[in-house]
């Protein structure tokens, strides 16, 4: 169970948000909404442990994530604005590296299935350089299929650059993950219908105000 306790974030001299608190239990989805510049990405990066909040803390199973970095990272998969792919390498190689780093190395067949699951079977051996923006996004998302089923997914605008069919496919995968007891925290600007039990909403409000 992931819990955020009165989180606050100041970037430069602007206070993006403060006193933000929420908790996400197993099997729940959390969607973070707010206008551009209201600090959605910063909040996601705080939840990952990449960004240290100016006040408040993030707890996972009631313990601060800073103290259990290895366990928390084993359970976490983060797909940010950047795809985290090497252009000179093929999707297969990228996934091989990503899965090893995440602590659960996947065999060639598992990787092929993951890529097929995202409709990338035909271009699995092309360098990422030649893929379109939508295909690259799907390669980045293919990582989700390889990591442990009950983990935490933190997705920053996962639906951008995806075509309608890929959006539906991703929604199905997110719903399945939640049903399997995983946690998904994501942001999106598209109105997406995800067949899941309950989607918790956290609104970071409009434009960030002065500190």
């Amino acid at each position, binding site marked *: 169970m992931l819990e955020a306790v009165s989180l606050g974030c100041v970037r430069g001299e602007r206070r993006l948000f403060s006193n933000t608190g929420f908790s996400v239990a197993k099997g729940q989805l959390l969607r973070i909404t707010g206008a551009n510049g209201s600090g959605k990405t910063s909040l996601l990066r705080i939840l990952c442990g990449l960004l240290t909040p100016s006040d408040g803390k993030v707890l996972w199973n009631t313990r601060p994530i800073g103290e259990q970095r290895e366990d928390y990272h084993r359970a976490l998969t983060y797909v940010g604005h950047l795809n985290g792919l090497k252009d000179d390498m093929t999707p297969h190689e990228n996934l091989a590296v990503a899965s090893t780093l995440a602590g659960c190395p996947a065999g060639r067949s598992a990787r092929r299935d993951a890529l097929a699951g995202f409709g990338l079977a035909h271009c699995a051996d092309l360098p990422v350089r030649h893929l379109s923006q939508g295909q690259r996004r799907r390669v980045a998302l293919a990582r989700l299929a390889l990591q442990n089923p009950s983990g935490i997914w933190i997705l920053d605008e996962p639906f951008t650059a995806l075509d309608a069919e890929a959006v539906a496919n991703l929604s199905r995968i997110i719903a399945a993950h939640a049903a399997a007891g995983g946690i998904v925290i994501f942001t999106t600007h598209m109105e997406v219908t995800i067949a899941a039990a309950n989607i918790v909403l956290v609104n970071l409000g409009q434009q960030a105000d*002065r500190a």
Partner: protein
Amino acid sequence: MTTRDSDTYYSGNASPSAAKHRIHWFHYASPQTFYPLAGRLIPWFAALAVLLGAAGMYVGFLVAPTDAQQGDAYRIIFLHVPAAWMSMFLYVVMAFWAGVGLVFNTRLSAMLATAIAPTGAMFTFLALWTGSLWGKPTWGTWWVWDARLTSELILLFLYFGFMALQAAIDDPRRADRAGAVLALVGVINVPIIYFSVIWWNTLHQGASISMKSAPTMAMTMLLGMLLMALCFWMYSIATILARVRCILLERERHTDWCMTELRGTP
């Protein structure tokens, strides 16, 4: 300072007063209380600096006897040695405050480190300038590849590196923390650099030309140098406190207490 209330989950504001009930000795660590304190201290340190400076110059230039070998050229020592001491002392103090800022995440100590760097760099430059002016009459060359002078030169590069890094980063928080890492790595390397330069100096040139041939310390000479060192120290504290107040105002421009401060006269 009102913050945006979200519809679903939270409300309330996070004003600095909430930090008041924490450990008392953090009391002066909060910029709001430190600013007036520093303002009150600056005149005292400035006055001390002027007094000690006058005394030091008097002893050094009017009382200390002429040296047998070097004549009166040695009087530059009253400026050169204190400046060199201050340059190394300020680097260590800067690294200390940068480290504290990194570990305890206190913005004020990081600002203090940023404020120290220019004064430290200035004293390093002065040590080099006076060192070469002293070298010319005594050893005939403007620049002596003496171990200590060369280490001073490298220390100047370390200061420039620190200031250049902090200037290149816009986000103040990252600038402080990146500068802290560099200062800590630098302070570990200063002794290594110093001893390797000494080894390098004695290896190539032997000890023929080196600062060690300074005149034996008569009592008045030592007193003059100590007075000047204390003068530079007081001066540094006054200047650094003044600069840290400027940095404080620049960074906390949006807080309420800063606005009231900025409405007053400079």
